[in-house]
Every structure is written in structure tokens, then in C-alpha cells.
């Protein structure tokens, strides 16, 4: 069992070391205070042991205020400093860099389904290239799950009915555990998988070898046509003969949208998803609430593809090619999700 007896996890992502530093910082502080209190207790226990000539404790009236203030303020300062440090690490964990590549993930009892932007799908496994920030947009088909990759020090709950995101940049090739860490029913402890971090060349090889997949955006574009979204959300400029029935989606992602009745909402992934499933929830100002709902008509993976497609539409695309192909991949506006 000894070789198989780790006491500290692998650090395999760009944030892992900062998280570990924060942890070790607290460990040091904790060790200090625990040993301090422990030592004082032991010393006092021995030194002031009850004796025949010391039947009672001292009754001296000590001015407690100065010492109380001291030992309130010092821990407060320490705690607030650690809070601030922790906040910095937290921002790093929660905010993906602008060039993060968008993956999608769907959790369901009891498996993980991942979609690469190139269209490759994996179940309970996730191949990623080292050195590339990756953001995974996640949703659940049923109950609350939670995606956890200990070696990367990242985690997010995965909720039904909305998106949450997680991002990481793998720094070391290797195989790492992937766990579901929000209790989700009978097979919760078997809803696990492996992240395969590969050197970029190996990743390209893996991607190319025997894996067919339509890029997510392209399949999203197909769905856009198949579900007739383009009959109302036209790409062409509106004309009096063919007035637009729905707002243009060009360059929509990431912008602020004004809604009927005042108020605005940010057009993030959750907004896009909700607009497809509950179109009346956020009607855009100046438009009629005539969009039908597509609830129950498509799977989470198809929704992900559609959302990814709309994300990719650059601003100013008022004309489209015949097959509705979007702008070049990688030109999508910065995503501010999360």
C-alpha cells in the first residue's frame, strides 16, 4: 500500500500552486496557534497542578481589556488578510482568461458527457491539451451534481435548468481524477472519470485519430436551420417585404440586452438557453412575445451546440453564406460567463 499512499495531491493546473500556497499559509498559522494553545494548556496543567498548598486559584483582579483587545485584533487582522489572499485566488479560479476555449459538459445520473468544440464527444473522460485555458459550460439533466478535478483545484456545482462554468489550464501531462462531488443518488460515487492532459501535439493526434465530430458550432448552425430559428432571427437585413420577427443575434453574446418593461440582462449562456426554453421570460424591448418554446424538443447537448453557435456570431453579420456558416472559429466575443 505504501506506493499508493499519497498525502498531497498532484498540482497540475495553473491555479493549483496558488491554492496550495494559500492552504499551506493557513496550515502554518493553524499549526502555530494550535501548538501555542496546546503548549500553554500543557504547561499550565503541569505548573498549576492542584496541591495541598494551592487549593484555590488566584483571585487577583486583572485588567483584562488590553489583552482582550490584543487577542481580538490580531486574529481579526490575520483572518482578514487571509480573506483577501483567498479572494485573489478565488477570482483567479472563477475568472477564465479571454482566450479560453469553450467546452460543454452535461451531467446526468450517473455520467459525465463532454463536448469538445471540434464536436468530439466523451463520456466520463476528458482529453485536454496542456497549456491551453479551457472553460467548460455545464448543465445537468436531472439533479444537482458537481464537477471536481482535484489535481486542478477546481470545482463547480452543476445545476439543472441553468449553466455554471468551470475553467482551468492544465500544466502537466498526466491522468487525473474527475469526480462528482454533490450527492446525486445511488451511483454518486461511481460518477467518476479521468482527465487526460496531453502535450499539445499528443492532443492534436488524439483529436485527429479515428474521432469524427462535427464542430459544435457547425452542428449548432445546422440546428439553427432545422428548428427554423432563422425564419425569425434572420441574418439578412430586414426589408419591408420581409420584416424581421425577432431580434438579430449577430454579436449578441456578452452584450447587455434591454427588456420589455425596463431592466437589462447580460446575454450570457444561461440567457441564451433560457430564451430558447422559456422565450417569454426575457422579451427584448421593442419586440413582440411571439417566440415559441423549444422545451422538450432538443437534448442538452443540442442546446449546447445551439448556444455555442449563437455565441460565435460576430457583430455585423447581416448577410450570410448559403449554408449559414458563422464567422471563423475563435473570433467569438470574449465570454464573461460565470
Amino acid at each position: 500500500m505504501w506506493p499508493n499512499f499519497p498525502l498531497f495531491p498532484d498540482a497540475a493546473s495553473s491555479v493549483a500552486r496558488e491554492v496550495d500556497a494559500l492552504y499551506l499559509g493557513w496550515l502554518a498559522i493553524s499549526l502555530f496557534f494550535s501548538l501555542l494553545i496546546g503548549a500553554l494548556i500543557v504547561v499550565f496543567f503541569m505548573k498549576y497542578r492542584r496541591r495541598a498548598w494551592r487549593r484555590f486559584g488566584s483571585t487577583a483582579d486583572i485588567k483584562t481589556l488590553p489583552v482582550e483587545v490584543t487577542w481580538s485584533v490580531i486574529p481579526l487582522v490575520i483572518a482578514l488578510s487571509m480573506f483577501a489572499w483567498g479572494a485573489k485566488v478565488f477570482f483567479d479560479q472563477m475568472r477564465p482568461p479571454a482566450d479560453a476555449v469553450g467546452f460543454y459538459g452535461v451531467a446526468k445520473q450517473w455520467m459525465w458527457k463532454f463536448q469538445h468544440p471540434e464536436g468530439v464527444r466523451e463520456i466520463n473522460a476528458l482529453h485536454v491539451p496542456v497549456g491551453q485555458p479551457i472553460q467548460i459550460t455545464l448543465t445537468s439533466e436531472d439533479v444537482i451534481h458537481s464537477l471536481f478535478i482535484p489535481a486542478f483545484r477546481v470545482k463547480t456545482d452543476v445545476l439543472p435548468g441553468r449553466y455554471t462554468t468551470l475553467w482551468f489550464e492544465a500544466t502537466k501531462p498526466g491522468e487525473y481524477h474527475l469526480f462528482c462531488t454533490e450527492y446525486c443518488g445511488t451511483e454518486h460515487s461511481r460518477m467518476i472519470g479521468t482527465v487526460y492532459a496531453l502535450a499539445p501535439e499528443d492532443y492534436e493526434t488524439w483529436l485527429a485519430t479515428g474521432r469524427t465530430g462535427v464542430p459544435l458550432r457547425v452542428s449548432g448552425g445546422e440546428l439553427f436551420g432545422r428548428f427554423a430559428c432563422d425564419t425569425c432571427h434572420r441574418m439578412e437585413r430586414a426589408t419591408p417585404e420581409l420584416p424581421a420577427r425577432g431580434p438579430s443575434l449577430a454579436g449578441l453574446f456578452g452584450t447587455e440586452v434591454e427588456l420589455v418593461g425596463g431592466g437589462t440582462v447580460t446575454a450570457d449562456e444561461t440567457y441564451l438557453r433560457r430564451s430558447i426554453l422559456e422565450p417569454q421570460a426575457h422579451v427584448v424591448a421593442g419586440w413582440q412575445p411571439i417566440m415559441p418554446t423549444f422545451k422538450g424538443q432538443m437534448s442538452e447537448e443540442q442546446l449546447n451546440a445551439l448556444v455555442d453557435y449563437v455565441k460565435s456570431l460576430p457583430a455585423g453579420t447581416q448577410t450570410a453564406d448559403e449554408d449559414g456558416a458563422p464567422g471563423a472559429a475563435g473570433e467569438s466575443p470574449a465570454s464573461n460567463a460565470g
Partner: protein
Amino acid sequence: MSSLHAEHGPRHHPALAHHFEDLEQQKEASSFGMWVFLVTEIMFFGGLFCAYLIYRRASFAAFAEASATLDIDLGAFNTAVLIGSSLTMALAVWSAQMSRKKLVVLFLLATFVLGGVFLGVKVVEYGHKFHEHHVPGRHFEWENPATEAGAEMFFSLYFAMTGLHASHMVVGMGLILFLLVPAWRGRYGRDYYNPIECFGLYWHFVDIVWIFLFPLLYLIGRHGVPGGH
């Protein structure tokens, strides 16, 4: 703090419990206890109000539409009935303080009757909702698909909140029956009217909860400003 000067008279009052110094301490303790209990009731209803506020903000239009299907006349009538019952309850407490036994019984009965009227009207209202298929669950029906989910949420909260309130009224009416017997026997008077007063506090609280429920549930968006909050 307890009185150090317990006289023999009050000390032997039949209502004085053995662990209290005197009636004064007992009265203060029981009133204070009832106030503490009402605080817990505020927190109990509070959870529902919190859920209501959150969902109302998320689906205001649906909430307004659903609220409009409630019978505002019946709701207003019920509000008047409950306020009236608080008046009769306050008069019952006053009568007890005046040691006027018959009036105590009269006003307790009046409160009971008014409470019954309130509940009767609620039964009628619930019946309407049942027939209109506005009861959430399997048989819920709503014409406007755009606001269906929000409307069902509204009605879930409507039934939860008014149901919780109604159950508190039923308990209250049961307690009135309990109080009637010793009231008839003249047990409450100038020296000792704790139970009536404490129950009065409870009844007023239940009334106040309704005074919040009525505008929140019945009067959404009815102030005449189109599309406003």
C-alpha cells in the same frame, strides 16, 4: 425581577402556578413568552414571504396576471372581517380586565364567529380556484403559455401562504373554545386575565399576517399603472 413582597392574598390565587413568586411574575412571564412565540411565527411565515418575494421579482408579469384572477371583493371582505375579529378580541381582553364575565364570553364568541366567516369565505375562494384549474400540480391549466410557469408558482405560494395562515386560524378558533369554558365560569378577572390577553396577542398576529398577505397576493399591479411594479 420577582417581587420580594409577596402578599398572602395573591399568593393563594388559584391560578398562581407554584414555581412563580406571585401573579405579577406569572403574568409578565406568560406575556413575554407569547411575544417570543410570535417572533418564531414571524420567522416561520418569513420563509414563505422570502420565497414569494424572490419569485415575484423573477416573474412579475405572471404574478400580476395570476393575482388578477383572485376575487378582490372577497379578499377585501375577509380583510374587514378579520380586522373586525381583532376588535372583538381586544374587547374580550378589555372585558376580562373589567371582570365582566358575560361580555368576555360574548366577545370571544363573536371573534369565533368572525373567524368562521373568514374561513368560510376562504373555502369558497379555494373552491373557485379548484374549478378554474388553478390549483398547482397535475391538473393545473393556464391559458397563456408565456406566463404559465410563473402563474403556477404564484398559486403554489398562494395556497402555501393562505393555507398556513388558515391553519393558524383554525388553531386559534380551537383555542377560543378552550377559553370559553373557564370564561363562562368566571375565572378571568381583574387579577388574572393572562390567557385571554396572550391569546389576544396571537389572534392579532394572525390578523396582521393577513394584512400583509392581502396586498401581496390580491393586489399585484392593481394600482392602475400599466406594466409597473
